[in-house]
Protein backbone atom coordinates (compact mmCIF):
# COMPACT_ATOMS: atom_id res chain seq x y z
CA UNK A 1 0.00 0.00 0.00
CA UNK A 2 1.07 3.52 -0.57
CA UNK A 3 1.74 5.24 2.71
CA UNK A 4 2.41 8.80 1.79
CA UNK A 5 2.77 10.86 -1.31
CA UNK A 6 3.62 14.49 -0.91
CA UNK A 7 4.53 17.08 -3.49
CA UNK A 8 5.63 20.45 -2.30
CA UNK A 9 7.62 23.38 -3.55
CA UNK A 10 10.80 24.00 -1.63
CA UNK A 11 11.24 27.79 -1.67
CA UNK A 12 14.79 27.70 -0.39
CA UNK A 13 16.16 25.53 -3.14
CA UNK A 14 13.62 26.56 -5.76
CA UNK A 15 12.88 22.98 -6.60
CA UNK A 16 9.93 20.68 -6.52
CA UNK A 17 10.45 18.01 -3.96
CA UNK A 18 8.48 14.82 -4.08
CA UNK A 19 8.56 12.45 -1.18
CA UNK A 20 7.16 9.03 -1.77
CA UNK A 21 7.50 6.45 0.94
CA UNK A 22 6.49 2.88 0.39
CA UNK A 23 6.36 0.07 2.87
CA UNK A 24 5.65 -2.72 0.50
CA UNK A 25 6.31 -6.31 -0.34
CA UNK A 26 4.52 -9.61 -0.36
CA UNK A 27 4.05 -11.47 2.88
CA UNK A 28 6.15 -14.28 1.44
CA UNK A 29 9.14 -11.99 0.99
CA UNK A 30 11.49 -12.07 3.96
CA UNK A 31 13.00 -8.75 3.02
CA UNK A 32 10.70 -5.88 2.34
CA UNK A 33 11.91 -2.95 0.37
CA UNK A 34 11.70 0.56 1.64
CA UNK A 35 12.08 3.15 -1.01
CA UNK A 36 12.79 6.73 -0.27
CA UNK A 37 12.61 8.83 -3.34
CA UNK A 38 13.87 12.35 -3.45
CA UNK A 39 13.53 14.20 -6.68
CA UNK A 40 15.28 17.47 -7.26
CA UNK A 41 14.81 19.46 -10.38
CA UNK A 42 13.64 22.77 -11.68
CA UNK A 43 9.84 22.52 -11.52
CA UNK A 44 9.48 24.11 -14.91
CA UNK A 45 10.92 21.03 -16.61
CA UNK A 46 8.55 18.47 -15.12
CA UNK A 47 5.35 17.94 -17.08
CA UNK A 48 2.26 18.52 -14.93
CA UNK A 49 -0.15 15.61 -15.09
CA UNK A 50 -3.37 14.89 -13.20
CA UNK A 51 -3.70 11.23 -12.26
CA UNK A 52 -7.17 10.54 -10.90
CA UNK A 53 -7.78 7.61 -8.54
CA UNK A 54 -9.14 4.77 -10.68
CA UNK A 55 -12.80 3.90 -10.36
CA UNK A 56 -13.68 0.57 -8.72
CA UNK A 57 -16.94 -1.23 -9.31
CA UNK A 58 -16.30 -4.21 -7.03
CA UNK A 59 -17.22 -4.54 -3.39
CA UNK A 60 -15.05 -3.17 -0.61
CA UNK A 61 -11.90 -1.28 -1.45
CA UNK A 62 -9.96 -1.92 -4.66
CA UNK A 63 -7.18 -4.53 -4.47
CA UNK A 64 -4.56 -2.03 -5.55
CA UNK A 65 -4.33 1.74 -5.95
CA UNK A 66 -3.34 1.74 -9.62
CA UNK A 67 -3.23 5.54 -9.83
CA UNK A 68 -0.81 5.70 -6.90
CA UNK A 69 1.54 3.19 -8.56
CA UNK A 70 1.47 5.13 -11.82
CA UNK A 71 1.98 8.40 -9.92
CA UNK A 72 5.03 7.02 -8.11
CA UNK A 73 6.46 5.64 -11.37
CA UNK A 74 6.09 8.89 -13.26
CA UNK A 75 7.42 11.02 -10.39
CA UNK A 76 10.42 8.73 -10.11
CA UNK A 77 11.34 9.40 -13.72
CA UNK A 78 11.83 13.09 -12.93
CA UNK A 79 9.98 13.99 -16.11
CA UNK A 80 6.53 14.39 -14.55
CA UNK A 81 5.01 16.34 -11.67
CA UNK A 82 1.70 14.82 -10.64
CA UNK A 83 -0.91 17.11 -9.14
CA UNK A 84 -1.59 16.47 -5.48
CA UNK A 85 -4.59 14.21 -5.10
CA UNK A 86 -6.29 16.74 -2.83
CA UNK A 87 -6.03 19.37 -5.54
CA UNK A 88 -7.80 17.40 -8.27
CA UNK A 89 -10.77 19.39 -9.58
CA UNK A 90 -12.88 16.29 -10.23
CA UNK A 91 -12.73 12.52 -10.04
CA UNK A 92 -13.75 11.25 -13.46
CA UNK A 93 -13.35 7.54 -14.07
CA UNK A 94 -12.89 5.45 -17.18
CA UNK A 95 -15.50 6.35 -19.75
CA UNK A 96 -16.28 9.83 -18.41
CA UNK A 97 -15.76 12.83 -20.66
CA UNK A 98 -13.41 15.22 -18.83
CA UNK A 99 -14.18 18.92 -18.47
CA UNK A 100 -10.94 20.01 -20.05
CA UNK A 101 -11.30 23.70 -19.20
CA UNK A 102 -11.29 22.91 -15.48
CA UNK A 103 -8.25 20.64 -15.81
CA UNK A 104 -6.43 23.33 -17.76
CA UNK A 105 -7.14 25.85 -15.00
CA UNK A 106 -5.77 23.44 -12.42
CA UNK A 107 -2.47 23.41 -14.28
CA UNK A 108 -2.53 19.91 -15.75
CA UNK A 109 -1.19 19.43 -19.26
CA UNK A 110 -2.25 15.79 -19.28
CA UNK A 111 -4.95 13.78 -17.55
CA UNK A 112 -4.98 10.06 -16.75
CA UNK A 113 -8.23 8.41 -15.67
CA UNK A 114 -9.15 4.76 -15.35
CA UNK A 115 -11.25 2.10 -13.78
CA UNK A 116 -11.11 -1.40 -12.48
CA UNK A 117 -13.78 -4.09 -12.18
CA UNK A 118 -13.81 -7.69 -11.02
CA UNK A 119 -14.04 -10.23 -13.83
CA UNK A 120 -13.77 -13.97 -13.39
CA UNK A 121 -11.07 -14.71 -10.88
CA UNK A 122 -9.30 -11.43 -11.70
CA UNK A 123 -10.01 -7.93 -12.86
CA UNK A 124 -10.19 -5.74 -15.90
CA UNK A 125 -8.21 -2.53 -15.62
CA UNK A 126 -8.63 0.21 -18.19
CA UNK A 127 -7.37 3.72 -18.59
CA UNK A 128 -7.52 6.75 -20.85
CA UNK A 129 -4.82 9.36 -21.27
CA UNK A 130 -5.85 12.82 -22.43
CA UNK A 131 -3.97 15.82 -23.72
CA UNK A 132 -5.73 18.59 -21.78
CA UNK A 133 -4.58 21.44 -24.00
CA UNK A 134 -5.53 19.65 -27.23
CA UNK A 135 -8.66 18.19 -25.57
CA UNK A 136 -7.76 14.90 -27.18
CA UNK A 137 -7.64 11.24 -26.22
CA UNK A 138 -4.04 10.11 -26.64
CA UNK A 139 -4.25 6.49 -25.60
CA UNK A 140 -6.30 3.92 -23.77
CA UNK A 141 -6.22 0.19 -23.12
CA UNK A 142 -7.87 -2.54 -21.13
CA UNK A 143 -5.90 -5.19 -19.29
CA UNK A 144 -7.12 -8.48 -18.00
CA UNK A 145 -5.19 -9.07 -14.80
CA UNK A 146 -4.95 -11.18 -11.69
CA UNK A 147 -3.87 -10.20 -8.19
CA UNK A 148 -0.35 -11.20 -9.26
CA UNK A 149 -0.29 -9.03 -12.37
CA UNK A 150 -2.05 -5.90 -11.07
CA UNK A 151 1.16 -4.02 -10.34
CA UNK A 152 2.63 -5.08 -13.66
CA UNK A 153 -0.44 -3.65 -15.40
CA UNK A 154 0.02 -0.38 -13.50
CA UNK A 155 3.65 -0.24 -14.66
CA UNK A 156 2.56 -0.87 -18.25
CA UNK A 157 0.17 2.06 -17.93
CA UNK A 158 3.12 4.15 -16.71
CA UNK A 159 5.16 2.96 -19.70
CA UNK A 160 2.36 3.92 -22.08
CA UNK A 161 1.92 7.40 -20.56
CA UNK A 162 5.68 7.95 -20.62
CA UNK A 163 6.09 6.89 -24.23
CA UNK A 164 2.95 8.64 -25.49
CA UNK A 165 4.02 11.98 -24.01
CA UNK A 166 7.82 11.83 -24.24
CA UNK A 167 8.28 9.62 -27.28
CA UNK A 168 10.69 7.35 -25.37
CA UNK A 169 9.80 3.84 -24.18
CA UNK A 170 9.25 3.63 -20.43
CA UNK A 171 11.18 1.20 -18.23
CA UNK A 172 8.72 0.89 -15.35
CA UNK A 173 7.68 -2.70 -16.03
CA UNK A 174 11.21 -4.03 -15.54
CA UNK A 175 13.26 -5.48 -12.71
CA UNK A 176 16.45 -4.87 -10.77
CA UNK A 177 18.81 -7.65 -9.70
CA UNK A 178 21.06 -6.89 -6.75
CA UNK A 179 23.10 -8.60 -4.04
CA UNK A 180 22.10 -8.15 -0.41
CA UNK A 181 24.20 -8.98 2.62
CA UNK A 182 22.93 -9.33 6.15
CA UNK A 183 24.37 -10.63 9.43
CA UNK A 184 27.57 -9.90 11.30
CA UNK A 185 31.09 -10.52 10.06
CA UNK A 186 31.57 -14.29 9.96
CA UNK A 187 27.81 -15.01 9.99
CA UNK A 188 26.79 -13.47 6.75
CA UNK A 189 23.94 -14.36 4.45
CA UNK A 190 24.31 -13.33 0.83
CA UNK A 191 21.32 -13.15 -1.46
CA UNK A 192 20.97 -12.53 -5.13
CA UNK A 193 17.62 -10.79 -5.29
CA UNK A 194 15.23 -9.60 -7.94
CA UNK A 195 12.81 -6.75 -7.34
CA UNK A 196 10.48 -4.74 -9.51
CA UNK A 197 12.00 -1.50 -10.79
CA UNK A 198 10.11 0.38 -8.05
CA UNK A 199 11.71 -1.82 -5.36
CA UNK A 200 8.54 -3.84 -4.89
CA UNK A 201 8.31 -7.58 -4.48
CA UNK A 202 11.95 -8.47 -3.74
CA UNK A 203 12.60 -12.20 -4.11
CA UNK A 204 15.83 -14.07 -3.47
CA UNK A 205 16.81 -16.28 -6.40
CA UNK A 206 19.99 -17.45 -4.64
CA UNK A 207 20.83 -17.56 -0.93
CA UNK A 208 24.34 -18.48 0.18
CA UNK A 209 26.56 -18.22 3.26
CA UNK A 210 29.44 -17.19 0.94
CA UNK A 211 29.89 -14.14 -1.29
CA UNK A 212 27.92 -13.72 -4.50
CA UNK A 213 28.95 -11.03 -6.93
CA UNK A 214 28.71 -9.56 -10.40
CA UNK A 215 25.13 -10.47 -11.41
CA UNK A 216 24.56 -10.03 -15.15
CA UNK A 217 21.25 -10.38 -17.00
CA UNK A 218 21.08 -12.42 -20.17
CA UNK A 219 19.38 -10.58 -23.04
CA UNK A 220 16.40 -12.94 -22.52
CA UNK A 221 15.70 -11.50 -19.05
CA UNK A 222 15.33 -15.08 -17.73
CA UNK A 223 18.90 -16.17 -17.06
CA UNK A 224 21.37 -14.41 -14.82
CA UNK A 225 25.11 -15.08 -14.67
CA UNK A 226 27.01 -14.43 -11.45
CA UNK A 227 30.13 -15.31 -9.50
CA UNK A 228 29.76 -17.52 -6.44
CA UNK A 229 32.30 -18.36 -3.74
CA UNK A 230 30.21 -21.26 -2.42
CA UNK A 231 33.37 -23.33 -2.81
CA UNK A 232 35.63 -21.44 -0.45
CA UNK A 233 38.85 -22.25 -2.22
CA UNK A 234 37.81 -21.48 -5.79
CA UNK A 235 35.26 -19.14 -7.27
CA UNK A 236 32.95 -20.19 -10.10
CA UNK A 237 30.75 -18.51 -12.69
CA UNK A 238 27.19 -19.83 -12.80
CA UNK A 239 24.20 -19.20 -15.02
CA UNK A 240 20.87 -19.57 -13.25
CA UNK A 241 17.43 -19.72 -14.81
CA UNK A 242 15.27 -17.63 -12.49
CA UNK A 243 12.05 -19.39 -13.41
CA UNK A 244 13.26 -22.98 -13.29
CA UNK A 245 15.71 -22.56 -10.42
CA UNK A 246 18.18 -24.56 -12.50
CA UNK A 247 21.77 -23.51 -12.85
CA UNK A 248 24.90 -24.50 -14.71
CA UNK A 249 28.51 -23.99 -13.67
CA UNK A 250 30.08 -22.25 -16.65
CA UNK A 251 33.66 -22.28 -15.47
CA UNK A 252 35.78 -22.66 -12.34
CA UNK A 253 39.49 -22.56 -13.03
CA UNK A 254 42.30 -21.93 -10.62
CA UNK A 255 42.53 -18.24 -9.77
CA UNK A 256 39.94 -15.67 -10.76
CA UNK A 257 36.62 -16.62 -12.35
CA UNK A 258 34.94 -13.26 -12.57
CA UNK A 259 33.04 -10.40 -14.16
CA UNK A 260 30.66 -12.22 -16.53
CA UNK A 261 29.06 -10.13 -19.27
CA UNK A 262 26.61 -11.48 -21.88
CA UNK A 263 27.23 -11.01 -25.56
CA UNK A 264 24.28 -9.32 -27.31
CA UNK A 265 23.30 -12.67 -28.90
CA UNK A 266 23.17 -14.34 -25.48
CA UNK A 267 25.46 -17.18 -26.59
CA UNK A 268 28.78 -16.05 -25.11
CA UNK A 269 30.09 -14.59 -21.88
CA UNK A 270 33.05 -12.26 -21.65
CA UNK A 271 34.79 -13.14 -18.37
CA UNK A 272 37.99 -12.65 -16.38
CA UNK A 273 40.27 -15.62 -15.77
CA UNK A 274 43.76 -15.79 -14.28
CA UNK A 275 44.65 -19.48 -14.60
CA UNK A 276 47.26 -18.61 -17.25
CA UNK A 277 48.92 -15.91 -15.12
CA UNK A 278 47.69 -12.37 -14.65
CA UNK A 279 43.96 -11.64 -14.99
CA UNK A 280 42.94 -11.46 -18.66
CA UNK A 281 39.73 -11.19 -20.65
CA UNK A 282 38.31 -14.34 -22.24
CA UNK A 283 35.17 -15.15 -24.17
CA UNK A 284 33.50 -18.46 -23.38
CA UNK A 285 30.89 -20.11 -25.61
CA UNK A 286 28.19 -21.06 -23.13
CA UNK A 287 26.98 -24.13 -25.03
CA UNK A 288 30.36 -25.71 -25.77
CA UNK A 289 32.56 -24.18 -23.09
CA UNK A 290 35.10 -23.18 -25.75
CA UNK A 291 37.42 -20.46 -24.49
CA UNK A 292 39.04 -17.67 -26.49
CA UNK A 293 41.61 -15.42 -24.88
CA UNK A 294 41.01 -11.77 -25.77
CA UNK A 295 43.77 -9.93 -23.89
CA UNK A 296 47.30 -11.01 -22.99
CA UNK A 297 48.94 -8.42 -20.79
CA UNK A 298 51.03 -8.78 -17.66
CA UNK A 299 48.73 -6.22 -16.02
CA UNK A 300 45.26 -6.62 -14.50
CA UNK A 301 42.63 -6.88 -17.23
CA UNK A 302 39.08 -7.35 -15.94
CA UNK A 303 35.44 -6.13 -15.98
CA UNK A 304 34.69 -6.79 -19.66
CA UNK A 305 31.41 -5.52 -21.12
CA UNK A 306 30.12 -5.77 -24.67
CA UNK A 307 29.73 -2.43 -26.43
CA UNK A 308 28.30 -4.27 -29.45
CA UNK A 309 28.59 -7.70 -31.09
CA UNK A 310 32.22 -7.11 -31.98
CA UNK A 311 33.59 -4.82 -29.28
CA UNK A 312 34.50 -5.29 -25.63
CA UNK A 313 35.30 -2.53 -23.17
CA UNK A 314 37.32 -3.55 -20.11
CA UNK A 315 39.37 -2.25 -17.19
CA UNK A 316 43.16 -2.52 -17.26
CA UNK A 317 45.94 -1.13 -15.11
CA UNK A 318 48.51 -1.55 -17.89
CA UNK A 319 49.17 2.20 -17.76
CA UNK A 320 49.73 2.15 -13.98
CA UNK A 321 46.22 2.63 -12.61
CA UNK A 322 42.86 1.27 -13.75
CA UNK A 323 41.54 2.82 -16.98
CA UNK A 324 39.02 1.72 -19.59
CA UNK A 325 40.10 0.18 -22.88
CA UNK A 326 38.30 -1.03 -25.96
CA UNK A 327 39.24 -4.18 -27.88
CA UNK A 328 37.78 -6.33 -30.64
CA UNK A 329 35.80 -9.31 -29.33
CA UNK A 330 38.24 -11.43 -31.38
CA UNK A 331 41.21 -9.95 -29.55
CA UNK A 332 43.97 -7.71 -30.86
CA UNK A 333 45.20 -4.29 -29.96
CA UNK A 334 43.37 -2.48 -27.16
CA UNK A 335 42.77 1.25 -27.25
CA UNK A 336 42.44 3.40 -24.14
CA UNK A 337 39.19 5.38 -23.91
CA UNK A 338 39.36 7.14 -20.51
CA UNK A 339 41.88 9.85 -19.69
CA UNK A 340 40.39 11.96 -16.87
CA UNK A 341 41.21 10.94 -13.32
CA UNK A 342 43.49 8.21 -12.05
CA UNK A 343 40.79 5.53 -11.51
CA UNK A 344 38.22 4.58 -14.15
CA UNK A 345 36.74 1.07 -13.93
CA UNK A 346 33.63 -1.14 -14.08
CA UNK A 347 32.21 0.13 -17.35
CA UNK A 348 28.62 -0.34 -18.46
CA UNK A 349 27.32 0.58 -21.89
CA UNK A 350 23.98 2.26 -22.58
CA UNK A 351 21.48 0.17 -24.58
CA UNK A 352 22.02 2.30 -27.70
CA UNK A 353 25.80 2.12 -27.30
CA UNK A 354 26.21 5.89 -27.18
CA UNK A 355 27.28 6.27 -23.53
CA UNK A 356 29.66 4.44 -21.24
CA UNK A 357 29.15 4.84 -17.49
CA UNK A 358 31.82 3.73 -15.04
CA UNK A 359 33.32 4.23 -11.60
CA UNK A 360 35.48 7.33 -11.56
CA UNK A 361 38.06 8.19 -8.92
CA UNK A 362 39.94 11.45 -9.05
CA UNK A 363 41.27 11.76 -5.52
CA UNK A 364 38.15 12.32 -3.43
CA UNK A 365 36.46 8.94 -3.39
CA UNK A 366 34.58 7.25 -6.19
CA UNK A 367 31.69 8.60 -8.21
CA UNK A 368 29.78 7.49 -11.29
CA UNK A 369 31.12 9.09 -14.45
CA UNK A 370 29.89 8.89 -18.00
CA UNK A 371 31.45 9.49 -21.38
CA UNK A 372 29.55 10.23 -24.55
CA UNK A 373 31.17 7.86 -27.03
CA UNK A 374 30.80 9.90 -30.21
CA UNK A 375 32.35 13.03 -28.67
CA UNK A 376 34.39 11.61 -25.81
CA UNK A 377 32.81 14.23 -23.53
CA UNK A 378 33.15 13.26 -19.86
CA UNK A 379 31.02 14.23 -16.88
CA UNK A 380 30.63 13.12 -13.29
CA UNK A 381 27.04 12.22 -12.38
CA UNK A 382 27.13 11.53 -8.63
CA UNK A 383 28.59 13.08 -5.48
CA UNK A 384 29.16 10.00 -3.30
CA UNK A 385 32.46 8.72 -1.96
CA UNK A 386 31.94 4.96 -2.50
CA UNK A 387 29.73 4.85 -5.59
CA UNK A 388 30.07 1.62 -7.56
CA UNK A 389 28.45 -0.75 -10.08
CA UNK A 390 26.52 1.51 -12.50
CA UNK A 391 23.81 -0.08 -14.67
CA UNK A 392 21.59 1.54 -17.33
CA UNK A 393 17.81 1.19 -17.46
CA UNK A 394 16.78 -0.57 -20.68
CA UNK A 395 15.49 2.72 -22.15
CA UNK A 396 18.85 4.36 -21.41
CA UNK A 397 17.29 7.21 -19.41
CA UNK A 398 18.41 6.23 -15.90
CA UNK A 399 21.42 4.71 -14.18
CA UNK A 400 21.16 2.66 -11.02
CA UNK A 401 24.30 2.26 -8.91
CA UNK A 402 25.57 1.16 -5.51
CA UNK A 403 26.29 3.81 -2.93
CA UNK A 404 26.70 4.14 0.81
CA UNK A 405 24.39 5.93 3.19
CA UNK A 406 24.70 6.04 6.98
CA UNK A 407 27.27 3.26 6.87
CA UNK A 408 25.10 0.88 4.85
CA UNK A 409 25.15 -0.11 1.25
CA UNK A 410 22.15 1.28 -0.62
CA UNK A 411 21.17 1.66 -4.23
CA UNK A 412 20.95 5.04 -5.90
CA UNK A 413 19.36 5.90 -9.20
CA UNK A 414 19.54 9.02 -11.28
CA UNK A 415 18.38 10.24 -14.63
CA UNK A 416 21.08 11.00 -17.17
CA UNK A 417 19.74 14.54 -17.54
CA UNK A 418 20.42 15.07 -13.84
CA UNK A 419 16.80 15.85 -13.01
CA UNK A 420 16.19 13.09 -10.50
CA UNK A 421 18.02 11.06 -7.90
CA UNK A 422 16.64 8.49 -5.52
CA UNK A 423 17.79 5.79 -3.15
CA UNK A 424 16.57 2.33 -2.20
CA UNK A 425 17.36 0.66 1.12
CA UNK A 426 16.39 -2.76 2.42
CA UNK A 427 14.46 -2.56 5.67
CA UNK A 428 15.96 -5.75 7.16
CA UNK A 429 19.08 -3.83 8.16
CA UNK A 430 21.23 -5.43 5.51
CA UNK A 431 23.28 -3.80 2.82
CA UNK A 432 22.48 -3.85 -0.87
CA UNK A 433 24.99 -3.64 -3.68
CA UNK A 434 25.69 -4.47 -7.32
CA UNK A 435 22.40 -3.49 -8.94
CA UNK A 436 21.79 -4.70 -12.49
CA UNK A 437 18.77 -3.35 -14.36
CA UNK A 438 16.96 -6.00 -16.40
CA UNK A 439 16.47 -5.81 -20.14
CA UNK A 440 12.91 -5.51 -21.43
CA UNK A 441 11.19 -8.85 -21.06
CA UNK A 442 10.90 -10.67 -24.36
Amino acid sequence: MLDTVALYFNEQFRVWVVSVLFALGLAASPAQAVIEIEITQGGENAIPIAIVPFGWSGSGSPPEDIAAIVTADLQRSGNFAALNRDDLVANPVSGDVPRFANWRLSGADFLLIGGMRPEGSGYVVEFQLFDVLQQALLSGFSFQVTDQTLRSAAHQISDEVYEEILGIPGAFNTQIAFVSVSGKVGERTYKLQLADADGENPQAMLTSPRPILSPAWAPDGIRIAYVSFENRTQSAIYIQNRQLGSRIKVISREGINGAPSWSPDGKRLAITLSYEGSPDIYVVQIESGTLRRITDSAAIDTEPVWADDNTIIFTSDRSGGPQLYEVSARGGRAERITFEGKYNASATVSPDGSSVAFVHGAGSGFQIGVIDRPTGLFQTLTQGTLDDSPSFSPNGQMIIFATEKNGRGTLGALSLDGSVSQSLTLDDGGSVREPAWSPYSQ
Partner: protein
Amino acid sequence: MKKISFVAVLVTSTLISACGSLPQRGGDDASAQDVIPLSNDSAVVRPVTIDGVQDFENIDPNSIAGKAPADRVIYFDYDQAELRAEFLDIVAQHGRFLAQNPAGRVRLEGHTDERGTREYNIALGEARAKTIARMLQLQGVNAVQTRTVSYGEELPVDDAHNNDAWAKNRRVNIIYETAVQN
Protein backbone atom coordinates in the same frame (compact mmCIF):
# COMPACT_ATOMS: atom_id res chain seq x y z
CA MET B 1 -15.82 20.55 -27.22
CA LYS B 2 -14.34 17.91 -29.39
CA LYS B 3 -16.27 14.69 -29.27
CA ILE B 4 -14.39 11.78 -27.86
CA SER B 5 -15.06 8.19 -28.62
CA PHE B 6 -14.11 5.48 -26.19
CA VAL B 7 -15.27 2.63 -28.36
CA ALA B 8 -12.06 2.03 -30.21
CA VAL B 9 -9.37 1.18 -27.74
CA LEU B 10 -5.91 1.39 -29.12
CA VAL B 11 -3.50 -1.49 -28.80
CA THR B 12 0.01 -0.48 -29.70
CA SER B 13 2.64 -2.79 -31.04
CA THR B 14 4.76 -2.00 -28.01
CA LEU B 15 2.34 -3.62 -25.64
CA ILE B 16 1.68 -6.56 -27.89
CA SER B 17 5.36 -7.31 -28.14
CA ALA B 18 5.75 -6.88 -24.42
CA CYS B 19 3.20 -9.62 -23.85
CA GLY B 20 3.71 -11.60 -27.02
CA SER B 21 5.91 -14.40 -25.78
CA LEU B 22 4.21 -14.84 -22.44
CA PRO B 23 1.73 -17.61 -21.82
CA GLN B 24 -1.68 -16.08 -22.32
CA ARG B 25 -3.17 -17.01 -18.99
CA GLY B 26 -6.87 -16.25 -19.00
CA GLY B 27 -6.64 -15.43 -22.67
CA ASP B 28 -9.68 -17.58 -23.48
CA ASP B 29 -11.86 -15.22 -21.50
CA ALA B 30 -10.72 -12.24 -23.52
CA SER B 31 -13.74 -11.72 -25.68
CA ALA B 32 -12.77 -8.33 -27.00
CA GLN B 33 -9.63 -7.67 -28.98
CA ASP B 34 -8.88 -4.68 -26.83
CA VAL B 35 -8.45 -6.66 -23.64
CA ILE B 36 -4.84 -7.63 -23.09
CA PRO B 37 -4.27 -10.72 -21.01
CA LEU B 38 -1.36 -9.95 -18.77
CA SER B 39 0.76 -12.74 -17.43
CA ASN B 40 3.29 -12.21 -14.75
CA ASP B 41 5.18 -15.42 -15.47
CA SER B 42 8.28 -13.43 -16.30
CA ALA B 43 8.39 -12.38 -12.65
CA VAL B 44 8.39 -15.93 -11.32
CA VAL B 45 11.44 -16.78 -9.26
CA ARG B 46 12.31 -20.29 -8.16
CA PRO B 47 14.81 -19.82 -5.35
CA VAL B 48 18.02 -21.76 -4.85
CA THR B 49 19.62 -22.07 -1.41
CA ILE B 50 23.19 -23.13 -0.74
CA ASP B 51 23.94 -24.47 2.71
CA GLY B 52 26.09 -27.03 4.44
CA VAL B 53 29.32 -25.10 3.99
CA GLN B 54 31.72 -25.23 6.90
CA ASP B 55 33.91 -22.20 7.47
CA PHE B 56 35.65 -23.09 10.70
CA GLU B 57 37.90 -26.09 11.03
CA ASN B 58 39.19 -27.61 14.24
CA ILE B 59 42.94 -27.65 13.93
CA ASP B 60 44.85 -30.45 15.64
CA PRO B 61 47.72 -28.74 17.52
CA ASN B 62 50.00 -31.63 16.59
CA SER B 63 49.26 -31.30 12.89
CA ILE B 64 51.31 -29.21 10.50
CA ALA B 65 48.59 -26.57 10.63
CA GLY B 66 48.78 -26.61 14.42
CA LYS B 67 52.56 -26.22 14.54
CA ALA B 68 52.96 -23.55 11.87
CA PRO B 69 54.01 -19.98 12.81
CA ALA B 70 51.21 -18.17 14.61
CA ASP B 71 51.32 -14.85 12.74
CA ARG B 72 49.28 -15.57 9.64
CA VAL B 73 48.07 -12.19 8.42
CA ILE B 74 50.06 -9.86 6.14
CA TYR B 75 48.82 -6.29 5.66
CA PHE B 76 49.21 -4.09 2.58
CA ASP B 77 49.17 -0.43 1.60
CA TYR B 78 46.23 1.01 -0.30
CA ASP B 79 46.03 -0.15 -3.91
CA GLN B 80 49.40 -1.92 -3.51
CA ALA B 81 50.40 -5.56 -3.82
CA GLU B 82 54.03 -5.04 -2.71
CA LEU B 83 55.11 -6.61 0.56
CA ARG B 84 55.78 -4.07 3.31
CA ALA B 85 59.27 -4.45 4.84
CA GLU B 86 57.85 -5.04 8.31
CA PHE B 87 56.21 -8.27 7.15
CA LEU B 88 59.33 -9.78 5.54
CA ASP B 89 60.14 -11.65 8.72
CA ILE B 90 56.70 -13.24 9.09
CA VAL B 91 56.71 -14.41 5.49
CA ALA B 92 60.24 -15.78 5.96
CA GLN B 93 59.12 -17.80 9.02
CA HIS B 94 56.36 -19.43 6.95
CA GLY B 95 58.81 -19.99 4.11
CA ARG B 96 61.26 -21.83 6.35
CA PHE B 97 58.47 -23.85 7.98
CA LEU B 98 56.91 -24.95 4.70
CA ALA B 99 60.30 -25.77 3.18
CA GLN B 100 60.98 -28.01 6.21
CA ASN B 101 57.47 -29.52 6.02
CA PRO B 102 56.93 -30.38 2.35
CA ALA B 103 53.61 -32.01 3.19
CA GLY B 104 52.31 -28.64 4.41
CA ARG B 105 49.86 -26.80 2.15
CA VAL B 106 48.81 -23.18 2.43
CA ARG B 107 45.96 -21.31 0.87
CA LEU B 108 46.76 -17.63 0.48
CA GLU B 109 43.56 -15.62 0.65
CA GLY B 110 43.92 -12.11 -0.77
CA HIS B 111 41.65 -9.28 0.42
CA THR B 112 41.26 -5.57 -0.22
CA ASP B 113 39.44 -2.68 1.38
CA GLU B 114 36.11 -1.56 -0.02
CA ARG B 115 37.42 1.32 -2.11
CA GLY B 116 37.30 0.82 -5.87
CA THR B 117 35.29 -1.61 -7.94
CA ARG B 118 34.54 -5.15 -6.78
CA GLU B 119 36.02 -7.11 -9.67
CA TYR B 120 39.11 -4.91 -9.84
CA ASN B 121 39.54 -5.58 -6.14
CA ILE B 122 39.31 -9.32 -6.81
CA ALA B 123 42.27 -8.86 -9.14
CA LEU B 124 44.14 -6.70 -6.61
CA GLY B 125 43.55 -9.28 -3.87
CA GLU B 126 44.93 -11.98 -6.14
CA ALA B 127 48.03 -9.90 -6.85
CA ARG B 128 48.62 -9.64 -3.07
CA ALA B 129 48.19 -13.38 -2.59
CA LYS B 130 50.59 -14.05 -5.49
CA THR B 131 53.17 -11.72 -3.93
CA ILE B 132 53.20 -13.91 -0.83
CA ALA B 133 53.27 -17.11 -2.93
CA ARG B 134 56.33 -15.81 -4.80
CA MET B 135 58.09 -14.87 -1.58
CA LEU B 136 57.47 -18.33 -0.14
CA GLN B 137 58.78 -20.00 -3.27
CA LEU B 138 61.92 -17.88 -3.07
CA GLN B 139 62.46 -19.50 0.35
CA GLY B 140 62.43 -22.92 -1.26
CA VAL B 141 58.76 -23.74 -0.84
CA ASN B 142 57.49 -25.98 -3.64
CA ALA B 143 54.86 -24.34 -5.88
CA VAL B 144 52.45 -27.21 -5.21
CA GLN B 145 52.44 -26.25 -1.52
CA THR B 146 50.73 -22.91 -2.17
CA ARG B 147 47.50 -21.93 -3.82
CA THR B 148 45.89 -18.52 -4.04
CA VAL B 149 42.32 -17.31 -3.92
CA SER B 150 41.12 -13.73 -3.87
CA TYR B 151 37.98 -12.50 -2.20
CA GLY B 152 38.62 -8.86 -3.09
CA GLU B 153 36.54 -6.63 -0.81
CA GLU B 154 33.90 -9.31 -0.17
CA LEU B 155 35.09 -10.55 3.23
CA PRO B 156 36.13 -7.59 5.38
CA VAL B 157 37.13 -8.24 8.98
CA ASP B 158 35.91 -4.76 9.88
CA ASP B 159 32.73 -3.35 8.35
CA ALA B 160 33.40 0.29 9.15
CA HIS B 161 34.03 2.82 6.40
CA ASN B 162 37.20 4.45 7.75
CA ASN B 163 40.98 4.27 7.54
CA ASP B 164 41.37 1.92 10.52
CA ALA B 165 38.94 -0.61 9.08
CA TRP B 166 40.43 -0.33 5.60
CA ALA B 167 43.95 -0.98 6.97
CA LYS B 168 42.74 -4.18 8.67
CA ASN B 169 40.93 -5.38 5.57
CA ARG B 170 43.86 -5.00 3.13
CA ARG B 171 45.45 -8.34 3.87
CA VAL B 172 46.51 -11.82 2.90
CA ASN B 173 45.46 -14.61 5.25
CA ILE B 174 47.88 -17.53 5.29
CA ILE B 175 45.67 -20.54 5.86
CA TYR B 176 47.19 -23.96 6.50
CA GLU B 177 44.94 -26.43 4.82
CA THR B 178 43.69 -29.33 6.83
CA ALA B 179 42.47 -32.62 5.43
CA VAL B 180 38.85 -31.54 5.03
CA GLN B 181 38.29 -28.77 2.55
CA ASN B 182 35.31 -27.78 0.54
